[in-house]
């Protein structure tokens, strides 16, 4: 799942934002930009030289994705518009694959799915964060805006395919080792089966979230790249 929080694009531009919050957001988006561009370069180098992508780029991607939790706090404190719940769900979707599944199933760390995920995520973010940053600094150039609203067309399907691939391949290992699961009986009378959690996630929630987000981004793309000349009504 992508982390394209449906914050209105105006949210970054809002001139009423206090200076300190604005300065902080510039710093945050700048750092994320550097992080994801590095992740992107390392991933491409790994592919080029035929080395393990997870071993080479895994750490960088994990740091960037962990730091992205700040975006939930940005929404919660109101320095960026948008719902904190949505921000959290989008952060959680990716983090679940990265920290919940991949980190605990070494068996799939070298899978093709990881390649797809790392390429899709890092390329998308290496465009998104520079765009946010230039939004905060002024107006982004036309080509950057075009990239920001076009990259997702191939990258989202690529990413979701990778995420689904990794999840499905990890399922038997999760079940066998009972990863992140507790069973009855216990004193808290609580049971949680991560295997089912992932199975339901990959079969229903992931596709639904993908379709919703993809259509949303396509609408945004139409709005931003081909704005209709607005005829103001009285």
């Amino acid at each position, binding site marked *: 799942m992508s982390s394209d929080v449906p914050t209105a694009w105006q949210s970054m531009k809002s001139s009423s934002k206090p200076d300190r919050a604005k300065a902080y957001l510039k710093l945050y988006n700048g750092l994320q930009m550097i992080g994801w561009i590095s992740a992107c370069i390392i991933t491409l180098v790994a592919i080029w030289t035929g080395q393990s992508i997870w071993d080479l780029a895994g750490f960088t991607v994990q740091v960037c994705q962990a730091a992205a939790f700040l975006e939930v706090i940005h929404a919660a404190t109101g320095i960026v518009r948008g719902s904190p719940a949505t921000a959290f769900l989008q952060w959680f979707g990716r983090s679940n694959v990265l920290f919940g599944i991949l980190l605990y199933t070494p068996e799939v760390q070298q899978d093709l799915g990881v390649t797809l995920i790392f390429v899709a995520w890092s390329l998308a973010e290496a465009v998104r964060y520079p765009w946010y940053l230039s939004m905060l600094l002024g107006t982004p150039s036309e080509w950057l805006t075009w990239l920001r609203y076009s990259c997702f067309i191939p990258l989202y399907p690529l990413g979701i395919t990778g995420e689904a691939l990794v999840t499905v391949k990890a399922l038997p290992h999760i079940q066998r080792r009972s990863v992140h699961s507790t069973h009855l*009986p216990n004193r*808290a*009378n609580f049971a949680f089966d991560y295997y089912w959690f992932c199975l339901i996630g990959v079969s229903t929630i992931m596709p639904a979230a993908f379709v919703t987000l993809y259509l949303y981004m396509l609408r945004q793309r139409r709005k931003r790249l081909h704005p209709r000349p607005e005829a103001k009504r009285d």
Partner: protein
Amino acid sequence: MKLKVVSRSGKELVAGGVDVDASGTVEDLSKAIYRAKPKLYPSRQRLTLPAEAGSKKPRVLEAGKKLSDYDINANSQVAFKDLGPQIGYKTVFFWEYFGPVLVYALIYSLPQFVYPWHRVVPKNKVQDLALAYWSFHYTKRILETFLVHRFSHATMPIFNLVKNCSYYWGFAAYVAYFINHPLYTAPPIERAAPLFAFALLCQAANFWCHILLSRLRSPSGKGGYTIPRGFLFEYITCANYFCEILGWLAFTAGTQTVAAGLFIAAGSFQMALWAKAKHARLRKIFDGKNGQLKYPKRWIMFPPVF
């Protein structure tokens, strides 16, 4: 007079205007719209006037008032919004509370179908107590719906029925599944019983809060906003939520079940949002200016933290 009623897109709802008597009431206007558009019964309609200078919110036309109260004349323009198909509050409340009683009782009494991979074991006393408390709680809610509560609105959008029922029925199944599980680990009854007694006490307090709240409104549900007084309301704006949450915390501890804790966590989150909104509204109305009462300093929902 012919009154111009426009929808949000700016289009006139009834071409040529709605015929209504200048000395009529808002209800007359609603009925006139209903006559012209039989699909749009009055409770589906939201009628507003453009915001006054200095205010951002449009003025909502209230059913009991006269058109002249809002200075509506032949030149006025009323904005219309279709609220969608409506359903009675009491209907929704009945189904959302009846479901949990049924779901819980079924899971309690039919373990051979709910837990087909486990041998059926006799129920523990704590599990019996939990069933009794659960059933009592939702029965109380149903009775309150019909005998105590006074609703300011008669209806709500029909989608709420689906939404509310999924929430209550779903959580009932989730909580009941764990409490009635053949592998359930019960706390000692000596610890559980006092906790259930305390939970019952909270329910009694919650009931008293509801009585006090219903007295603030006339039987028709009208009465605007009044400062709730008496009992725990002297300290907490939403004392009813406070009792409710406390009761469920005791239930969680009494049954020693995380699922019940998650249920009350979700409920508390929603109640906190409502409580915050109500507190803010009361403080705004009773600001102590222009002869208006000043809203006393109170906790919003849960002393000493919120």
